[in-house]
């Protein structure tokens, strides 16, 4: 217990340093970027005086250090500023679109884990057979296919040619679907949700699935060759027990690490996948803001994603050490 408290305290301190770095980097991005926010906010035919007045109002003429301190204190208090294009609070907008992206990222994560780990085990235990070669080729294809192209191909095949699933959009969220089921006994909401989720999930999760498959297969292969497996076999332990009790436990460490770390990668990947499926998430928000040079919004998204990564990272290390006592909490 004491060890754990120590772990969380020291890692949180390190994490805070990185988060401070993230906020500073994000502040510098806005500062260096060639756009003048005052011109963006002012109407096209605005006079020079109006632009000057907006600059003063935004504090753009203050020394950089003062701008930095006021931005930093704002962010620490949970104030991410106001959008240049809509003049509404950035935080509210991000909270509004975050569920769509998180739903998609978690769905992709679950899809990848459910498919890849069993497939990796089967492939490793049937090494050199047809199943193994097919699985290996599929995973090579998976890591080599850009997710946006895969998304378009899925739409082309399943939505356009076969007409099985909707092409894009997210008419209903998971929470809303569940509410409909409970309060109106109507499963329609959930099925609509599911039908819109399937293609984006596969498009986003495939790369990750292929990656996890490789890790699982290699991990299991390596463990199977070790002497304790031979000893366990010699003792007459049944194969499934050896597999689940010993081999998997020992080979899952890299899988857990990558799963945790890739949550950030999934959110990065969702930027493009969201663009294909017109998915109203954080990625689309980011692209729209980039096209409008809406820096406060972009800064907000970057901070939320970066902080999310740092926090996930700490928990991943913790889970790893509890799965595998050889990994020390440090």
């Amino acid at each position, binding site marked *: 217990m004491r060890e754990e408290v120590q772990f969380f305290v020291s890692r949180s301190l390190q994490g805070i*340093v*990185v988060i401070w*770095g*993230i906020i500073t*980097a*994000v502040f510098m*991005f806005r500062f*260096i*970027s*060639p756009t003048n926010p005052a011109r963006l906010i002012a109407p096209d035919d605005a006079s020079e005086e109006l632009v000057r007045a907006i600059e003063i109002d935004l504090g753009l003429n203050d020394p950089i250090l003062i701008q930095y301190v006021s931005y930093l204190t704002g962010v620490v208090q949970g104030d991410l500023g106001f959008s240049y294009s809509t003049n509404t609070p950035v935080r509210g907008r991000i909270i509004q679109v975050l569920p769509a992206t998180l739903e998609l990222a978690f769905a992709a994560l679950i899809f990848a884990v459910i498919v890849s780990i069993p497939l990796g085990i089967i492939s490793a235990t049937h090494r050199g057979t047809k199943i193994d070669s097919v699985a290996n080729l599929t995973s*090579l*294809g998976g*890591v*080599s*296919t*850009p997710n*946006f*192209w895969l998304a*378009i*191909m899925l*739409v*082309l095949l399943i939505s*356009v040619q076969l007409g099985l699933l909707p092409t894009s959009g997210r008419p209903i969220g998971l929470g809303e679907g569940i509410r409909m089921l409970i309060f109106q006994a109507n499963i329609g909401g959930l099925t609509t949700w599911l039908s819109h989720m399937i293609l984006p999930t596969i498009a986003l999760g495939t*790369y990750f699935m292929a*990656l996890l498959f490789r890790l699982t297969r290699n991990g299991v292969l390596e463990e199977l060759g070790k002497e304790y497996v031979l000893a366990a076999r010699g003792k007459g332990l049944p194969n499934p027990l050896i597999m689940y009790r010993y081999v998997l436990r020992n080979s899952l460490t890299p899988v857990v690490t990558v799963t945790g770390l*890739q949550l*950030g*990668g999934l*959110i*990065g*990947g969702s*930027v*493009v996948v969201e*663009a*294909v499926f017109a998915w109203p998430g954080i990625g689309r928000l*980011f*692209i729209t803001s*980039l096209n409008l*040079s809406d*820096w406060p919004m*972009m800064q907000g*998204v*970057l901070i939320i*994603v*970066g902080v999310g*990564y*740092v926090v996930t990272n700490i928990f991943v290390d913790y889970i790893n050490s509890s799965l595998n006592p050889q990994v020390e909490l440090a």
Partner: protein
Amino acid sequence: MISKRTRTAVLKELHSNKLATVGTALILCMLFVGMFAPVLAPHDPTQQDNSQTHQPPAFMGGETETTRLVDGEMQTVTEDNSGSLTHPLGTDTNGRDVLSRAIYGARTSLLVALTAMMASLILGTSVGMTAGYFGGKTDTILMRFVDVVLAFPALLITLAMIGVIGPLTFFIPDPFVTSGLITDRPTHMVFPVTITAAIAAVIWVWIARVARSEAIRVKNEEYVTAARTMGRSNFGIIRKHVLPNSITPILVLATIQVASIIIIESSLSFLGFAGTNLSWGYDIAQGRDYLGTSWWLSTIPGLFIVIAVVGINLFGDLLRDALDPGIDRGEV
């Protein structure tokens, strides 16, 4: 810089592994296609022809029935719209040749990927070597900086860098056209400076991490201590001893990263930040609007990406198996 032992190991792996041979062949093909794009492309990739729009690839398509206004009456007419060998992979909405565009797309991808890889290699190796060799405060500061970059998904931070740098492109005269060897082809190659710089600015951290751990491994070897005792400068030791002994895993990672760079580049051009319209990602984005009628527009450039990336991944696996540097790859 590449030792004989390394060369033998790679050649041996190449002989014993068929997939690796395929990968190497694919990479050589891509380099060839990219370099000699003006010679290989059957048409000018930017040449528009309104009488030849939406032609399917050769041996595909056929007679289709459409309803249109003929002499003031709606009539069902049969139109012959089958592919021809003039445009082996069909044409797009503006009648441009899909194959030629894909060939020129390879060139853009290569230009971005190789430049970004070189830049990231130089920056990453310098920072990583410095951090690993000197250790202490230098190491802590540099590596915290790396941690900050790593905290963002690569694509998101690349997009942010595009916002920071602003759109920049650079025109390079095409040697085949300026020398008069080839006519009717674009006279300049467009080099998308912004996305190259943005990608390099992000991807170097992976190189830095590997370079750092290699430098830490090497710096306590006896020959380094010996060199220090002989009074060699720190810079001299890094250049003469540490770098040559840690270069293999760094180069392997850099090779694998080319695959990631190609995917990031195509994603950025798909999203419309390419700075050039001769790019695989751009063509895929353009073809999206015609999925129902002209499937080949988005499909073909994507296949080119997959083939290129498969080639690099296979080649990377070959290097890794042959040299076994035990590194993890930089992910998108």
